[in-house]
């Protein structure tokens, strides 16, 4: 049974998503419970896989579909890097799926079923993208992720249609570029399997076609992960998406493409050839641009969600910067920051979901008295904000530490300056929120869903909030274990030589 764990990560949510509407028709909430149960199953499978990988000393687990051996057949390849990300994604997915329940409480069966079907498919897409060992299969999951993502964004109410449509147009270009890049690679090597591709790409590393393919992939993933200056779709999409699912969309949807970029750059193409070196430089410049522009734009925003969206542009810049350093510490920093940022951003959007649920309005300057009304949310905001700024002992500090180490090792002193500036800008806009919450006079906001009691929010919303806040705090203490125990087991070959 446990040797089939890799496929269950994707299979369980996929089956549940397909059956969800049927179950919802039978009983309104049954579909939702089915999806939540399936995601819990996926999380359990992901943890099992992670344990297996660690037990195997970091050796990748290959799971072939239907007994077809690669390179003909499709396989899932699970190494330390992607199994830890799978645990992360399914963990956040589980929390957010639970969190969404109060939002669909008053809807009819069609909406509940539809919402949870899309949510399940989004999880399938993200997990599939991360687990797969086949570049075309990755495209399939990328599309599953994108299409369900468009749907969830469009569910958000007024203005969300336009945001979703805009994302659809730009996202399709990104996906097409990725497909184009895969086409080039296939034309050069005749294979779609990642391991095979890595072995066969060697003679082509200096050809112009290869440079073309790399360019397509970077732009394709860049659009999907909202890398500056390809982030145009992202602020609207994050702002207007369904408040129940926004945490998952904002936290995880940019991470799967970022992971795919790392997979291509470090595991398939290797970094020690001229094309890749210039590609890395470009990624680095885009990252720096994103960090600065994203942070400055975030300062100018009045809507909490928009501010966070721009802050995401900046944080994706951190990841891109880590990727571009091309050394071990940069790599570790990028991976760790993917994990940290997924958690912090989800946490912050969970808080926003709570504010939307209770008051219907999210204005930065109308958060006064939140510390009395939504105590748990406030604690989570403080922890996540400290982590975003990168102050110890929260998780964000440690990814910044590795990025700084990487910057010094690769002699990119400029990156250190940018990291410092970006942290300080983060500090400005997050302390502004903390000040608003604790110091300002109580904002007179009418309750949309009045809620008495200590938690301030329904239990299914309060628990994920508290869990994610604590995770951000404790992840900081366990980051060394994650790195020494997991990530270092699966470092790309480039660093081992």
């Amino acid at each position, binding site marked *: 049974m446990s040797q089939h764990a890799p496929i269950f990560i994707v299979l369980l949510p996929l089956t549940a998503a397909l059956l969800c509407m049927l179950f919802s028709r039978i009983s309104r909430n049954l579909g939702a419970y089915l999806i939540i149960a399936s995601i819990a199953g996926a999380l359990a499978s992901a943890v099992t896989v992670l344990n297996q990988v660690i037990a195997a000393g970091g050796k990748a687990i290959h799971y072939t579909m239907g007994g077809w051996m690669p390179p003909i057949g499709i396989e899932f390849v699970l190494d330390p890097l992607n199994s830890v990300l799978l645990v992360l994604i399914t963990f956040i997915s589980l929390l957010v799926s639970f969190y969404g329940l109060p939002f669909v409480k008053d809807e009819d069966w069609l909406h509940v079923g539809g919402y949870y079907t899309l949510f399940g498919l989004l999880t399938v897409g993200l997990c599939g993208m991360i687990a797969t060992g086949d570049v075309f299969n990755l495209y399939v999951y990328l599309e599953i992720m994108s299409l369900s993502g468009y749907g969830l964004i469009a569910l958000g109410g007024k203005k969300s249609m336009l945001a979703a449509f805009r994302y659809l147009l730009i996202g399709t270009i990104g996906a097409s570029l990725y497909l184009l890049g895969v086409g080039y690679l296939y034309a050069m090597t005749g294979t779609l399997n990642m391991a095979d591709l890595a072995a066969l790409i060697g003679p082509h590393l200096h050809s112009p076609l290869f440079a073309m393919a790399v360019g397509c992939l970077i732009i394709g993933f860049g659009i999907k992960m909202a890398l500056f200056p390809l982030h145009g779709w992202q602020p609207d999409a994050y702002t207007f998406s369904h408040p129940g699912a926004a945490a998952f969309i904002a936290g995880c949807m940019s991470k799967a493409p970022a992971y795919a970029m790392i997979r291509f750059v470090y595991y398939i193409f290797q970094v020690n050839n001229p094309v890749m070196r210039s590609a890395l430089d470009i990624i680095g410049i885009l990252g720096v641009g994103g960090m600065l522009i994203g942070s400055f734009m975030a300062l100018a925003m009045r809507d909490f969600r928009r501010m966070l969206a721009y802050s995401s542009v900046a944080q994706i810049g951190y990841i891109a910067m880590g990727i571009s350093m091309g050394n071990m510490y940069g790599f570790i920093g990028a991976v760790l920051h993917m994990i940290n940022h997924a958690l912090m951003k989800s946490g912050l959007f969970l808080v926003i979901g709570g504010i939307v649920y209770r008051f219907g309005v999210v204005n930065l300057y109308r958060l006064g008295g939140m510390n009395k009304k939504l105590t748990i949310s406030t604690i989570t905001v403080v922890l996540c904000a400290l982590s975003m700024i990168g102050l110890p002992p929260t998780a964000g*500090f440690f990814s*910044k*530490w*590795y990025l700084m*180490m990487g910057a010094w090792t690769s002699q990119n002193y400029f990156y250190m300056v940018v990291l410092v500036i970006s942290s300080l800008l983060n500090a400005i806009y997050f*302390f502004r929120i903390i000040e608003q919450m*604790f*110091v300002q006079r109580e904002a007179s906001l009418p309750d949309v869903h009045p809620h008495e009691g200590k938690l301030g929010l329904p239990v299914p919303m309060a628990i994920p909030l508290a869990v994610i806040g604590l995770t951000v705090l404790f992840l900081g203490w366990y980051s*060394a*274990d994650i790195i020494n125990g997991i990530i270092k087991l699966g470092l790309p070959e480039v660093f081992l030589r």
Partner: protein
Amino acid sequence: MTIVDARPFLAVGVTLFAAILISFSRRWPNVRESWSAIASVIKFGIILSMLPGVLAGDVYTYTLCQLTDTVGFTLRTDPAGMIFAVLASMLWVPMNFYSIGYMRCNQEREQTGYFAAFALCMSAVMGIAMAENLLTFFVFYELLTLASYPLVLHKRNQDALSASRKYLIYTLISGQLFLVGIVAVYCIAGTMSFTPGGFLNSGMAPRWVLQAIFVLMILAGSVKAAVMPLHGWLPAAMIAPTPVSALLHAVAVVKTGVFSVLRIIGFVFGPQLLAEINIIDFVSWAAAGTMLVSSLIAIRQDHLKRRLAFSTIGQLSYIVLGASLLSPLAIKGAYMHLVAHAVMKITLFMCAGLIIARTHRNNISELYGIGKKLPVTMACFTIASLGIAGMPFIVGFVSKWNLALGALQAGKPIYVLVWVASAILAAAYLLPVCQMAYFRDDPEEKFRKYGAHSNAMLIPICITTIIAILLGVVPNIYPHFYELSDMAAKTICAGWTAGGWQ
């Protein structure tokens, strides 16, 4: 002898735990404040229990977990750290009772948050004192910034808001610079454990790189130590309740700053390397300038707390200057002054707080004749003032004597003059307060109303005054600050004889 012992972490943890208990005891003020008091006594006990071992040369060390892939979250006791740990935990005990009295007398809001943040600050200070490596140090350094931020913001009004912003701007920027410095040190040296005499050497990097790193790190320390021109946050932060000003802005936060300067000079770079790379003089000049200028500014302040704030700025620079002279006696004097200034300044601030609580007067020009109404308080104030001015038989004299000897030992007698001038200026800005209180009668009989008397505030003041006198008469009385300072200075300067001393 190195002993693996979790007591350093217990000392940090006890107040952390107390902070959690305090947050949950919102409804029962007596319970809440007793948590704080109990924690302070336990913490002091834990620290004192390690003192005999440290004096005998033992090292207590413990690694709780890994902070990064290679650096541990480690605390370790050494004489230098012990001075700071004993000092802070010792002063926190009377301070706690004073806080309770002050907060109740003034009927302040948000007392739960206040006591919780206070306890958190003390955890951070213990961590700073006993950190084994730079990264552990930095974790607590930033924790202290975060924990003291709500205390500065305590009044929750516009003034407090702008003061707290100023505070954050200064401390966060300096923290980030410090982080860059730490990364650089770690990358060039491959280690970051504090080593007496420093672990960097001139073969590790080009001279200008070492100079640049030193400037980055010392800037960070200087912001918290309020060396001019980086002192702007300190007078602004006086908006906080007086106990906060007393403990944090005269003992904990600013002492953290000078302590980090001492750590950087003595345990990261080391006197030998600093003499080689020839950059320490800038620090000396800045410190000497700060001593004189801040004293001159202090004379012009009418607000009592602000005057004390500028006095703090000047006194801290004594320590920075002592450290930057790089001679054993000067470093010993610096550690001793860390203690001396803390004891005297906490007394002054507590007196100021009591005066404010009872008379509701903030300005010195309004303190007509309060000496008759508050005789004990003003007596303590006068003793502490004389101590700051360097009178013999009060603790301030012992440290200044060593600092002056250190300047001679380093071959820079000019700084003796600076110290003398600064001491005279200190007398010039503190003694008029006493004169106002004792010898001037209220011409209009305007100030007649006095608030309630509170022994919870008066007794701690007497205790710290007695400590100041005891340390002045018998410097090496238990807990042996003098001997600890001597040990710290000797280990830092071991093997470094270029100054011509033994």
